[in-house]
């Protein structure tokens, strides 16, 4: 068994901002009316042509994460942090490069990841657990702990669409951390939630780290990053700018930010 949890080798990710005939709002009607245009991806509108230029969200990002490491992922908005987490979560694939996972990944990428609004909190716990590859029994064993941590006992059987955003994220976070993550990815989700919950969740993350989980954690809260994570990676416009002890990296990053 290797000592690595994740290795990223030269990851590049390209996005087309808007491809004609694909994505939301495109229609078969367009394709059928303009078959030649579709085949050659030609479009008269210069604004669309411009927007169709490729945008590189990640450029040659490489790093290795060992089992049990805790890493903060920092950078300006649009630096590529979420994109990187999406690739590690296997929701999207890199355009170039190779990522290897040696641990099972749990991720909390947006508030309410994997929740179905129509179902109750209880059902969503089981649903989420299944998505994370857990067996029914395993989820059942953890059920009470999850509910207790999220502090929504009274509402556990109400459909999730009625939850407030705070309840939502508390449940989502509770599910993510309790379903025995090996590699846990968190994307700026701890920002929502009151101070009490933030303290509790940071505490929980430290517990997880002590028990050997690997954590990759995107946050704009530099104090939390320094506190929880030993190491930090700074992404800037898609490139890996700095990778080292969290205190150093955070300081360097903050300097560039406050310089403006």
């Amino acid at each position, binding site marked *: *068994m290797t000592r690595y949890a994740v290795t990223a080798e030269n990851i590049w990710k390209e*996005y087309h901002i808007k*491809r004609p005939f*694909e*994505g*939301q*709002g*495109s*229609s*078969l*009607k367009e*394709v059928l009316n303009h078959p030649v245009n579709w085949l050659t991806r030609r479009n008269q509108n210069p604004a669309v042509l411009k927007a169709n230029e490729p945008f590189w969200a990640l450029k040659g990002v490489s790093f290795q994460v060992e089992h049990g490491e805790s890493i903060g992922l920092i950078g300006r908005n649009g630096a590529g942090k979420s994109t990187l987490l*999406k*690739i*590690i*979560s*296997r*929701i*999207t*694939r*890199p*355009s*170039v*490069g*190779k*990522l*290897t*996972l*040696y*641990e*099972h*990944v749990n*991720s909390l*990428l*947006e508030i309410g*990841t*994997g*929740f*179905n609004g129509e*179902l109750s909190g209880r*059902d969503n716990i*089981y*649903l*989420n657990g*299944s*998505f*994370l*590859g*857990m*067996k*029914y029994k395993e989820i059942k064993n953890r059920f009470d702990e999850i509910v207790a941590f999220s502090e929504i006992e009274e509402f556990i059987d109400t459909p999730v669409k009625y939850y407030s955003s705070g309840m939502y994220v508390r449940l989502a976070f509770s599910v993510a951390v309790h379903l*025995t993550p*090996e590699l846990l990815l968190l994307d700026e989700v701890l920002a929502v939630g009151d101070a009490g919950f933030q303290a509790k969740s940071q505490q929980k993350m430290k517990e997880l780290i002590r028990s050997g989980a690997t954590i990759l954690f995107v946050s704009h809260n530099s104090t939390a990053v320094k506190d929880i994570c030993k190491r930090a990676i700074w992404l800037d416009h898609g490139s890996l700018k700095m990778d080292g002890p969290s205190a150093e990296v955070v300081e360097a990053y903050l300097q560039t930010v406050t310089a403006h």
Partner: protein
Amino acid sequence: MAEAMTPIVVVPKRGLELPDLHEVWEFKDLLFFLIKRDLKVRFQQTFIGVLWIVLQPLIQMLIFFVIFGIFVRVPTDGIPYPVFYLSGYVVWQLFLQIVNSSATSLLGNIGIITKIYFPRLTLPLSTAIGALIDFLISFSVLMVFLLANNYPITARYILLPFLVLLTMVFSEGVGLLFGALMVVFRDTKNLLGFILQIWMFITPIMYTISIVPEQYKIFFYLNPLTGFIGAYRWIFLGTDSLPTVEYFVVSSLVAVAFLIVGMIAFRSMENKIADVM
């Protein structure tokens, strides 16, 4: 959790890829959960739910029986019209349900698809199993009619499971194809509705293939359901209007082609979906 897992490698897409069935099996708990949930929701209005599955083919059959069995008198090779119609219609219903539910299962769950990883194929598969369960119920209704009209269970019934499997696999292929299209092109839903309507008419459900002139029969057999329904009727009704082996093979090949195209389209969509939504 303690055992080491096989490393997963995430790389850019290379060429054509087929969906990974092995992974779907790894996530089988999820599959069962989705099926259970689907059934729970549908049968929660228990009385209406189960009744509807039974009523719908019966009402259809009644209307068609009156119009095509009594007024128009469509030739059915001597078979009583209700039985003739139902034996084709339950198959059509299976196909229709799998196609519709699989095609919409992806777009309907676009929220979770873009946020968490799981083998996407699990979604249309879970709806296909749900459709199979409905089929079993309408099939029981058909059995009642068959037995009441002196069409007993024969040795031919042994082939039934394979035929059902073949039908399901084909329907799933069509469902995957349209499901993939629907995710990328929103107006596919309208197109699909239209296509399915036409499809129903070119399939010999309310009429028998023998009314089609010989030289045009091949076109009808390009529709896999024609070959399949002919085989179903051969099993249920003991008719010797089993499509000749050649015609059945044609139908099966087209079915396989649909399956492959469907899986490729699905895989292609799966890779891009998080990027374009």
